[in-house]
């Protein structure tokens, strides 16, 4: 068992800018590798071929792995494509519980990392990677994979700074201005809906908890925290309430739609121009081009509206890291692949072109993203604006029961969007807080209220 001292935990809390916080260093036997240095020699004897399995849901990763396999004939990476995010994590956790069946390498969304570490699913690869790897990434994404500790549980792959997407042609048609504050956004939403009762500037989606979390993050919320060796839950905060009641009011007034995103009906609305705006993240071009290919060249991207004019803040929606699991028999080689995948320029080019990802590695953002995505060829400054925005992501701490909070979001905001009252939106946040806190307590975590 690990020693736990409040001193150690307190030191971690001091790293207040961390995107993710946690209070302990990893177990000593974490990586299980012997050599302790960052560099490993690739086995040269073909008979000793290392087989690594890699679970991911990002498209095109088999092509990236093919490049690696060609260059490393003795370390073969086999890609197993998974359902997006949640099901893959579910399967991994079941395999960890069972003691076998997990892959060597695993794509993990940032918010899932504390859950996965809590279940002892991710290996500490700090001894297997080059210490300089850290410098390839921004502090925010690096803290997300270390949980603020000395351990390294994954290497960041892509990030999802949030932005505002809108139909430039429709804005022009109705003479609307691009909102820079949330007050503006509300006014534009109302104006648009008046001019075309079928059209909405956006929708409040009760099925996308990550989306709402990102908006709360922009407003300054941080839903979990570490206090000594206890967790705290701070979902029902002023910042979250502000976001929830803001949207509740828009939904109540009917100027914003209340239907979930990612449904066939939503796709239809993207296609026929009745969904005029979309609060989304950097990966939106891929979704838009897949769902509404005929609207190419009609969209534009802008900064997220701000709570106070002149501010410059955003949240994160999506983004993931690549981890080595505790069941891997070859963690050092897996770590080598993971590092190559997320820091080398040849892999970065493929992540962008095949995976449609926005790389987390700073150098890759510059080298791989020189021209705007094809779908946004009308906006030449797309990636320079994106780079500016990605520097303004606010800190946020995830806890070990993110899935519980997210599922509570679905249920509570499902009720609220159906009720369509501002009051219900505020109540939903309070219910989320209670469910998440109760679950943390009943699971036996040390919780401070």
């Amino acid at each position, binding site marked *: 068992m690990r020693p736990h001292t409040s001193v150690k935990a307190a030191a971690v809390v001091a790293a207040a800018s961390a995107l993710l916080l946690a209070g302990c260093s990893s177990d000593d036997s974490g990586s299980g590798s012997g050599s302790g240095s960052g560099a490993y020699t690739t086995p040269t004897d073909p008979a000793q071929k290392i087989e690594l399995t890699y*679970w991911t849901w990002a498209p095109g990763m088999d092509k990236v792995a093919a490049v690696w396999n060609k260059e490393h004939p003795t370390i073969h990476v086999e890609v197993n494509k998974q359902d997006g995010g949640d099901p893959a994590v579910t399967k991994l956790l079941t395999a960890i519980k*069972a003691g076998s069946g997990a892959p060597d390498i695993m794509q993990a969304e940032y918010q899932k990392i504390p859950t996965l570490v809590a279940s002892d699913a991710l290996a500490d690869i700090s001894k297997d990677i080059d210490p300089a790897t850290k410098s390839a990434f921004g502090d925010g994404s690096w803290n997300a994979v270390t949980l603020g500790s000395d351990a390294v549980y994954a290497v960041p792959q892509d990030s999802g700074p949030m932005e505002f997407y809108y139909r430039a042609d429709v804005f022009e048609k109705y003479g609307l201005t691009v909102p820079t504050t949330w007050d503006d956004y509300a006014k534009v939403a109302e104006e648009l809906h008046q001019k075309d009762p079928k059209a909405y500037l956006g929708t409040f989606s009760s099925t996308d908890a990550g989306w709402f979390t990102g908006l709360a993050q922009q407003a300054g919320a941080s839903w979990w925290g570490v206090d000594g060796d206890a967790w705290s839950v701070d979902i029902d905060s002023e910042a979250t309430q502000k976001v929830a009641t803001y949207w509740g009011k828009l939904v109540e007034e009917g100027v914003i739609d209340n239907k979930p995103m990612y449904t066939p009906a939503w796709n239809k609305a993207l296609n026929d121009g009745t969904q005029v705006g979309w609060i989304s993240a950097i990966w939106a071009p891929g979704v*838009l081009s897949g769902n509404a290919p005929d609207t190419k060249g009609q969209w534009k991207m802008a900064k997220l509206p701000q709570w106070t004019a002149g501010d410059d803040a955003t949240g994160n929606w999506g983004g993931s890291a690549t981890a080595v699991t505790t069941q891997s028999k070859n963690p050092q080689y897996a770590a080598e692949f993971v590092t190559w995948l997320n820091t080398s320029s040849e892999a970065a080019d493929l992540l962008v072109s095949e995976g449609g990802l926005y790389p987390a590695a700073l150098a890759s953002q510059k080298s791989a993203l020189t021209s705007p995505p094809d779908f946004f060829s009308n906006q030449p400054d797309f990636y320079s604006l994106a780079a500016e925005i990605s520097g303004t992501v606010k800190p946020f701490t995830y806890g070990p029961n993110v899935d519980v909070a997210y599922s509570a979001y679905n249920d509570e905001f499902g009720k609220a969007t159906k009720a369509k009252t501002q009051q219900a939106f505020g109540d939903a946040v309070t219910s989320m807080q209670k469910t998440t806190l109760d679950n943390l307590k009943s699971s036996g975590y040390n919780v401070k209220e």
Partner: protein
Amino acid sequence: MTATTLPAPTAPGRPGPDGAAGRPAGRTAGRTAWGGTTVLLLGAAYCLLPVVWVVIASTKSAGELFSTFTLAPSTHLWDNITALSDYRGGLFWRWMLNTALYAGVGGVLSVLVSAMAGYGLAKYSFRGKTATFNVILAGVLMPAVVLAIPQYLLLAKVGMTNTYWAVLLPSIISPYGIYLSRIYAAAAVPDDVIEAARTDGAGEGRIFFRLAVPMMMPGLVTVFLFQFVAIWNNFMLPYIMLGNDKLFPLTVGLSGLLNQGATQPAMYTSVITGALLSIIPLVALFLTLQRFWQVDLAAGAVKA
């Protein structure tokens, strides 16, 4: 080997393949009952509507799917099939083969095991018979969602998760198949035939395979068809058991194309085209083996 002493495998008392003995066929001379015909056609229309929708939707391009009128067909069916076939090097067709393997091999093994058990339960009296049957039947009542995790945890202990076996082996046991087989065995295999064979010195195993199985065969085909469809449509078990997408059956594979996560567009056109293609083999099975869907279900019930 020659078994000359065994009586020829006949199926006394069973109706011929064309329906119940001596019944006049439904299509009799006389006026058409328009009311009944209309109701039947409405029912058919209700059941066909979503199928018609799939056929039409699979002819549309990704853009058209959400921009043209729902029931207006287009011309991109071949493009969609090509796109689906190109996905990760023809993975879809591998899913199709996997599903055929799971359903085909699983169905055959299931029939064998069910037929043996059903015959044993119907034709012998032995200690624990009632209890065995009751316990096996109670297995019908355990929902798969409940069983999936314990099944996974236990199979993981012997390292069999993420293999073909993980899906095949649990699919073989079918309480429902055993139940049906017991009825078929009781109805289609006369006791005096068994007795006669025994008197002639035939072993129990030979009596089963040479005598009982041919007599039960039409019923067993029905059991096979039901089990085949059940495995073909199964989702939860392979979903939990398999991590390697090269082992996926169609249901799990298609659901993966649909649930791409927020950062990727759902591959609606591929899913819809895949759904259409995945239904075709079953429709073919329905049409070619139609008589087994109607006649042999009756095998247990004919002897009124």
